[in-house]
């Protein structure tokens, strides 16, 4: 697990809650597309907002491996540790 992962996860969940709506329940293992009710276009929009939130760019090559909330948090933490 990369340094800062826990902090990233908390901020990411806050952001996802706003996008998905207050009534939507999700965990670290929730699939962004099939379980969070976001279609692939909305996920790409969401990713761009998350990139701004963390001031990073997530390469598309990395996104192919991202399915769950946890995957996304790990990818963000890894990219932030590069800087």
């Amino acid at each position, binding site marked *: 697990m990369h340094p800062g992962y826990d902090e990233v996860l908390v901020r990411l969940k806050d952001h996802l809650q706003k996008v998905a709506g207050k009534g939507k329940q999700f965990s670290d293992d929730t699939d962004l597309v099939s379980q969070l009710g976001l279609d692939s*276009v909305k996920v790409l929009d969401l990713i761009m907002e998350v990139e701004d939130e963390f001031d990073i760019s997530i*390469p*598309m090559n990395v996104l192919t491996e991202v399915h769950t909330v946890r995957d996304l948090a790990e990818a963000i933490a890894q990219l932030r540790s590069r800087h």
Partner: protein
Amino acid sequence: MSLFNKFDQLARDRAALLSSGFDPFGAPIEQVFSPTEALINGRRIILAGTNNYLGLSFAPECLSAAHEALDREGTGTTGSRMANGSFSGHRALERELAEFYGCRSCIVFTTGYQANLGMISGLTGPGDVLMIDADCHASIYDGCKLSGAEVIRFRHNDAADLKKRMRRLGERVSSTLIIVEGIYSMLGDRAPLADIVAVKQEIGGYLQIDEAHSLGVLGETGQGLIEEAGVGDQVDFVVGTFSKSLVGIGGFCVSNLPELDLVRYVSRPYVFTASPSPSVIASTRAALKLVRDGRHLRERLWRSARRMYRRLADLGYRLGPEPSPVIAVMVDTREQALAFWYGLFEHGIYVNLVFPPAAPGDKSLVRCSVSAAHTDQQIDHICEAFAALRPMVTSATAS
């Protein structure tokens, strides 16, 4: 789980399409009468979705050049440009395209799709960065995959977003290729090229523009957006296609950078395919002259495009953000778009039907392309059909 499970949904969607009549994705064109009229499914139809922007597909100069090359050099080259497939015509077309753009050199590819695949995968690889507009064409996305470089998207036509993302790269900008398009194929909007060039000038990197839909359409001599924006000398690589205004099939890249000549040797989509047929090369050379001298065609094209855009906007259709020869009507659902497409066909009009994810966002498109060869009467007929069908897309009111 079998190899074909992933086709289950597609098979159901296709069956539904075919039950409506014939498949809009591959409408059978039985006879072509002119650049703007054909026989489809037994009916004489106005073509309003062909990308034949200057209407040159029956130009006598192109036809006679193709016939002559066919008789002189045969039907095909049967080989790669790197083997037996570089005829004198291929080299001549490369010289003429380089001269047309005032560039040092040019590479001709077998298709426009391969021009993007070949340039992107030839120029970049693992360790490099590709910074692409989010609405770029599939050929650009596929070229990115083939390259193995890191791929980052910036928000469509947003130079500030590009700048922010370029800044994040730090020293890696020196191995970064930015990619944009002159006119975007789905909504017909132009890149803010001067702003994008300014970002490149300030932060660094290289810039490639795909002029597939803007070649022949924009600029005094039809070079495309680089000419209209007056920034040709600031763009590193210009890619284009022969299959739209140049009415053949093939693609190219021109550049002033000497490294372009080396791309031939490392570009797999260039090396491992047969070169374009001699007749295609000959007709493209003839068409290039007509494009360069075709100011009157561009004027006619833009007059019809603006008239049709204005009329459809007045009818309340939700369109792309600016008048263009590509006029896309946005529709909320696939079902509405499909019904609308059949409705237009019943009125004797062929357009393109586009479903997500081929269209930006989550909308479906009924996409028209205007040609300089369309008569005023044909444009009127198309507009009247859109007026008659307006109640079918009640949700598509202009925002």
